[in-house]
């Protein structure tokens, strides 16, 4: 007997699968309140009693009919991955719809444990589930749980443990289809059984073959090595069965309708017996919230206000800690310098390690840490509440007009965290054309690597430009304008792509608006600080340290009176000026290719090393430094624009290559935002100069 059991974790989207996965394995699958979080099979281990279990989190789907990538992945794993047990997680608040997937899973395998999750939420909504009746009807173990609070998880472990032990035979409910279809299945099944034996459920396979499900034939061949197409006897039987169905007026649509009708009606019937709902009317609280947050009058203003509030809190909240951290880190720098002098180390070593590496690191930490530590938790709260699907709902018409997919609004939101994550998230879009559009345009929303730079520049530069209005309000508005411009460019470029290299019309799309859920504040703080903030900061720091040294070397190796940095900047200067930037800025963007976080530190390094050394322990000092190097408000605006629209970072491009499997689309993803940024900066800079405003 194997030393571990494989457990598949299936379920509809957004039923708390990831929470269960995390609670059981301790692994940190990122969770959020919107459908489609799991796009690949995540794996994790746990032990219960004397056995080890490998838990495989398969994509959330409504059905196993393989009409999308996720459904095919899910079905193939349940069917061919040979899991010892399949756990189907169902949502207690809408059990009936979830039973659809449960019943379809039972058709494939009897080794199922049904976990009815969100029991507490259902209770709050006055919905009671009779688990005993449910278990009796389904013929497999049923466990009630509330994964967020940990309730029922031990029972789930125990049920899985028992189901995995050999010798346990369940009697899963068999779905009976209409007589004609059953007759057709009986014509084919013996032949299928001859080939697949008891490796997979022959009745189910026969049904799929009659249905003409091509993906199942392919999967049977590729994964199991069963060549059913070239089996002459089977082909004859199949032809006979289809002819029989035809004679009885079942074409493929009618047959599918009938299959679905049977399953859905059965789910309806079981739910009627097992669910006791005192409150027949649908959730009135959610409807009230939605009637404001997605209404014609308040929907868009509410969205912009919420986003503005998040940014305003970030800008105001980050200001003071930034200065404190900078003050502290630069105090340490002085102590380090004293130490190096005391130790009598050569000036180049002090320069390389302190002025190069340490100072860049100090800048990255003091500029990035506070805004991220505020922005991420706030954004995660919105995510946890279930607001993001409402964003997609509000914005869908724009995406439709751009001939793009409505779920692109979701991948765009993911891009706020990290563009590479946004690119991976594009898998939730089925149509390859629309997926490519979402991939290419994802970089138009600034990721967390670019946010701090945008926040810093808008705070120190744009913030003070309007007298009489608090700086934080002005810089929030500047930031908002950049984001809205990013969204606008996303739509515009999507539309242009749809009309040129990615021609086509929008495909159909269905969006679920999940119930609002109370965010788990404690969990959010831990998750967003540990997983996101520290992870991103760690990545930035690990790139900033060597980059800091490299920049210091470039700034201090001089040939003929000018440093390498000066040569590079001088070479880029004429072109950069056209864009409203300068050579150092443009070079910083190029050198910042590994990670956008280090762009601002590189600019500062270049300026500091070429000018007189300034004490950079406050934003005001930074402002002075930038102004002394010729920055105007136009420079600030162009830097923000170029930061919004330029080539994706190295990690993102690598992800695009992996996802698209194509150098061509990777190159296009590089060129499209870059050319857009160059064009926009050029137009802005030239127009402002022509009008004599800059």
């Amino acid at each position, binding site marked *: 007997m194997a030393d571990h059991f494989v457990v598949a974790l299936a379920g509809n989207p957004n039923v708390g699968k990831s929470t269960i996965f995390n609670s059981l394995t301790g692994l940190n699958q990122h969770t959020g309140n919107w459908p489609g979080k799991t796009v690949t099979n995540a794996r994790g281990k746990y032990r219960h009693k004397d056995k080890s279990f490998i838990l495989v989190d398969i994509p959330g789907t409504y059905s196993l009919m393989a*009409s999308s990538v996720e459904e095919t992945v899910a079905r193939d794993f349940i069917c061919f991955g040979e899991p010892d047990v399949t756990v189907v997680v169902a949502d207690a608040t809408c059990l009936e719809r979830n039973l659809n997937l449960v019943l379809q899973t039972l058709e494939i395998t009897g080794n199922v444990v049904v976990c009815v999750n969100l029991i507490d939420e259902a209770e709050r909504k006055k919905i009671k589930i009779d688990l005993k009746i449910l278990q009796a009807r389904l013929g497999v173990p049923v466990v009630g749980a509330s994964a967020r609070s940990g309730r029922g998880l031990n029972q789930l472990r125990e049920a899985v443990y028992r189901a995995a032990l050999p010798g346990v035979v369940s009697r899963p409910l068999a779905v009976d289809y209409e007589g004609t279809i059953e007759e057709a299945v009986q014509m084919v099944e013996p032949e299928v059984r001859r080939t697949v034996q008891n490796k997979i459920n022959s009745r189910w396979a026969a049904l799929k073959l009659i249905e003409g499900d091509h993906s199942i034939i392919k999967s049977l061949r590729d994964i199991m090595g069963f060549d059913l197409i070239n089996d002459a006897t089977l082909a004859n039987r199949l032809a006979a069965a289809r002819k029989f169905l035809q004679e009885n007026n079942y074409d493929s649509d009618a047959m599918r309708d009938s299959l679905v009708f049977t399953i859905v009606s059965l789910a309806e019937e079981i739910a009627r017996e097992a669910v006791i709902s005192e409150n027949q009317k649908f959730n009135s609280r959610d409807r009230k919230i939605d009637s404001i947050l997605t*209404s014609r009058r308040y*929907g868009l203003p509410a969205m912009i206000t919420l986003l503005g509030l998040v940014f305003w809190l970030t800008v105001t909240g980050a200001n003071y800690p930034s200065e404190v951290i900078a003050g502290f880190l630069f105090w340490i720098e002085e102590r380090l310098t004293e130490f190096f002098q005391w130790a009598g180390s050569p000036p180049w070593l002090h320069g390389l390690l302190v002025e190069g590496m340490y100072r860049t690191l100090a800048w990255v930490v003091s500029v990035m840490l506070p805004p991220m530590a505020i922005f991420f938790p706030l954004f995660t709260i919105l995510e946890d509440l279930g607001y993001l699907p409402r964003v997609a*709902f509000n914005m869908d018409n724009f995406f439709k007009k751009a001939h793009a997919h409505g779920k692109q609004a979701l991948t765009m939101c993911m891009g706020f965290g990290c563009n590479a994550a946004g690119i991976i998230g594009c898998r939730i879009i089925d149509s390859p054309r629309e997926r490519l559009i979402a991939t290419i345009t994802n970089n138009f929303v600034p990721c967390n690597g670019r946010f701090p730079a945008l926040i810093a520049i808008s705070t120190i530069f744009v913030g003070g430009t309007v007298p009489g209005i608090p700086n934080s309000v002005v810089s929030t508005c500047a930031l908002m304008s950049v984001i809205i411009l990013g969204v606008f460019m996303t739509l515009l470029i999507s539309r242009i792509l749809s009309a040129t290299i990615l021609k086509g019309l929008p495909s*159909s799309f269905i969006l679920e*608006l999940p*119930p609002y859920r109370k965010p788990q504040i404690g969990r959010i703080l831990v998750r967003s600080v540990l997983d996101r903030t520290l992870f991103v900061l760690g990545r930035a720091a690990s790139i900033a340290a060597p980059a800091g040294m490299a920049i210091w070397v470039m700034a201090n190796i001089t040939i003929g009176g000018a440093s390498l940095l000066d040569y590079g900047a001088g070479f880029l200067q004429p072109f950069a000026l056209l864009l409203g930037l300068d050579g150092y800025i443009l070079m910083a963007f190029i050198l910042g290719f590994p990670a956008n976080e280090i762009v601002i530190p590189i600019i500062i390094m270049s300026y500091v090393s070429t000018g007189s050394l300034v004490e950079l322990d406050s934003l005001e000092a930074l402002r002075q430094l930038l102004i002394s190097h010729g920055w105007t408000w136009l420079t600030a605006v162009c830097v923000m624009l170029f930061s919004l629209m330029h080539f994706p970072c190295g990690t993102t491009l690598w992800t695009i290559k992996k996802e698209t499997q194509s150098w061509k689309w990777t190159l296009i993803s590089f060129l499209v935002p870059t050319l857009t940024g160059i064009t926009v900066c050029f137009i802005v800079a030239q127009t402002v100069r022509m009008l004599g405003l800059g």
Partner: protein
Amino acid sequence: MKRELIPLNMLPLGSAAKVRSLTNDDSRTRRRMLDLGLIKNTHIEAIQKSPSGDPTAYWIRGAVIALRSDEASKILVEAVSGE
């Protein structure tokens, strides 16, 4: 009296209907509708329009599902009076 069939996108907000038939010619979309449990006689309510008028959110079998008018127009329903 024979009730009139209307496409789902014509169902006024706040009113309920029963699904009569799906008229999608594209079988993939049709499947997606079936996955939502939209079979004959399914109870459906129009509850909310997006700020720009499309898509519309419907109450279907315990869940709130947004459909674009293109898709909704392929679902024929019979309005349920009263309630």
